[in-house]
């Protein structure tokens, strides 16, 4: 732009001088011509630079600082005016330092670009660093993109849940914390059976034995085992609500992370399905590695445009039949049919539903029309939840203003879910 402007001015003056046969005009063009000529003679070649990037951490939590450091070395000729710029990925905020520097770099010299970023949940990829060398008058430039890949994943914050009392129909063979609906060694009383050789004498039930003098009876306890849990996160755009306080989806992600963490901590096998326009699977697994896999998948979770639930063909490899499914969704009016079909296929289904109506009402103007609209929406939602309860699908409704930990522990830590699955309200 600047050389073009200068060229046009020179052109104009020279043409004017020649057309009017006035030497003064050409004399006026001479300083500009000298400037353009000097810049042309001094114009830089494409800079030859090597760059290395380092990040203080490739994994962070929301709001935690991550220091990005770039070391750039000039492997070519001296550069009198070099601008180095990095485009910071959308969603990250620079909280310290700057991602650009203007400097002169001698041959073999090094400059360090260091800045600190923080951001919300997400997967962020750093790409190229842009280097622009200019002549000393700043008229001509040569620009190169220096490849310096890097990435940082900001995983959702994990809320610790002490206990989740789920009662799936099928458990695995390993000992865990989930009641297995089978008698054996355990803590909770399960029933009474006839004494068998080898049973500890302290299990003998005195009252029952007294009523039946012909035999000894012992207490039986409910076995506790690990189970398969599939968590489904609803990532449909339609089920999200966005307000000045943020997106409801972010709360759903946080709840999913908390559930996965608690279930894995109790030794269960947990898989994740993020349900948007595409299905993003995290195959079931155990332990800390699986926890990290799930958190990384949640960090990448993005909403997609899809209207209906089409979960009729869940692969049993991912979610074994009769296993526990936990759906984290704000729920849409037409979701009930798909959920009832899932229940009919013998999955033990639990729905954690962040309340979209209460969320939208937060901080909204309380005029009469809005209040009426909220009331109608609340009635529709109540009907939807009732339909699910009647189908044996327990729903934990989560008003966002309450901490998830509080809601989850009140609803899931002691409540007998088998009773809820029979149609009772939690």
């Amino acid at each position, binding site marked *: 732009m600047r050389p073009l402007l200068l060229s046009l001015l020179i052109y104009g003056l020279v043409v004017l001088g020649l057309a009017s046969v006035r030497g003064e005009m050409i004399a006026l063009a001479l300083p500009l011509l000298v400037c353009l000529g000097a810049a042309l003679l001094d114009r830089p070649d494409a800079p030859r630079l090597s760059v290395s990037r380092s990040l203080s951490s490739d994994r962070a939590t929301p709001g935690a600082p991550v220091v990005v450091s770039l070391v750039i070395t000039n492997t070519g000729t001296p550069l009198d005016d070099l601008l180095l710029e990095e485009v910071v990925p959308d969603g990250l905020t620079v909280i310290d330092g700057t991602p650009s520097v203007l400097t002169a770099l001698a041959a073999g010299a090094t400059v360090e670009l260091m800045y600190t970023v923080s951001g919300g949940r997400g997967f962020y990829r750093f790409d190229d660093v842009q280097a622009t060398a200019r002549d000393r008058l*700043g008229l001509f430039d040569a620009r190169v993109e220096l490849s310096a890949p890097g990435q940082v994943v900001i995983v959702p914050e994990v809320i610790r849940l002490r206990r989740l009392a789920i009662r799936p129909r099928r458990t695995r063979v390993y000992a865990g914390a989930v009641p297995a609906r089978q008698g054996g060694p355990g803590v909770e009383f399960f029933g009474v059976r006839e004494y068998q050789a080898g049973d500890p004498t302290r299990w003998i039930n005195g009252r029952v034995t007294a009523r039946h003098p012909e035999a000894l009876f012992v207490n039986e306890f409910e076995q506790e085992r690990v189970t398969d849990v599939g968590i489904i996160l609803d990532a449909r755009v339609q089920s999200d609500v966005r307000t000045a306080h943020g997106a409801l989806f972010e709360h759903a992600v946080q709840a999913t992370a908390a559930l996965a963490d608690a279930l894995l901590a109790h030794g269960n096998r947990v898989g994740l399905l993020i349900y948007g326009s595409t299905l993003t699977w995290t195959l079931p697994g155990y332990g800390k590695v699986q926890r990290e896999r799930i958190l990384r998948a949640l960090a990448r979770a993005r909403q997609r445009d899809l209207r209906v639930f089409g979960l009729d063909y869940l692969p049993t490899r991912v979610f074994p039949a009769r296993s526990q499914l936990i759906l984290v969704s704000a729920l849409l009016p037409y979701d009930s049919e798909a959920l009832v079909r899932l229940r009919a296929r013998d999955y033990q289904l639990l729905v954690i539903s962040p309340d979209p109506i209460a969320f939208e009402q937060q901080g909204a103007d309380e005029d009469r029309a809005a209040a009426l609209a909220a009331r109608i929406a609340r009635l529709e939602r109540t009907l939807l939840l009732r339909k699910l309860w009647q189908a044996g699908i327990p729903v934990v409704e989560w008003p966002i203003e309450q901490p998830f930990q509080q809601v989850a522990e009140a609803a899931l830590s002691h409540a007998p879910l088998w009773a809820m699955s029979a149609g009772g309200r939690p």
Partner: protein
Amino acid sequence: MKLLVSAGIGLAALVLATGAASNAAWVLAAAPIALGALWLVGVVRGWDWMGAFSFVSLMSLAALGMWLRIAPMLMLVGAVAALIAWDLDGLGRRMRSARRVEGGATLVRAHLQRLAAVAGLGLLLGGIALGIHIRLSFGWALVLGLLAILGLSRGCGSAIRSATEHRQ
């Protein structure tokens, strides 16, 4: 840097205004002052487009002064001062956009040295050109004009092209 730019703008406006005022061309004297003031406001407010606009306007005023044969030497000095101000304005903008400047003093010093050399040479050549009077026939003027335009076209074109090609 803002001080240097302001000084350049002030010098350009004052020299052009003095030249015009010395020939009692009051309207022409007021115009560079107004443009200079506007440019200064642009520098303070960070209006990036104002630099190019004011530079072209001041150059046009200098050309008008030359056309009207109003103090040609002062017009030339004013034009060179406008060029300096425009150049420094560009440097200031680049430094601001970078947010961090390493070795800023060295960078500015090298730039000023080059600019001083360019401005001095331009002023010298312009001054010599103003002093030389060569009578050319129409045919020679036409041939030289065509050669100048062709040369400039090729020179500027290749420079702009090579600058674009370097953007890899």
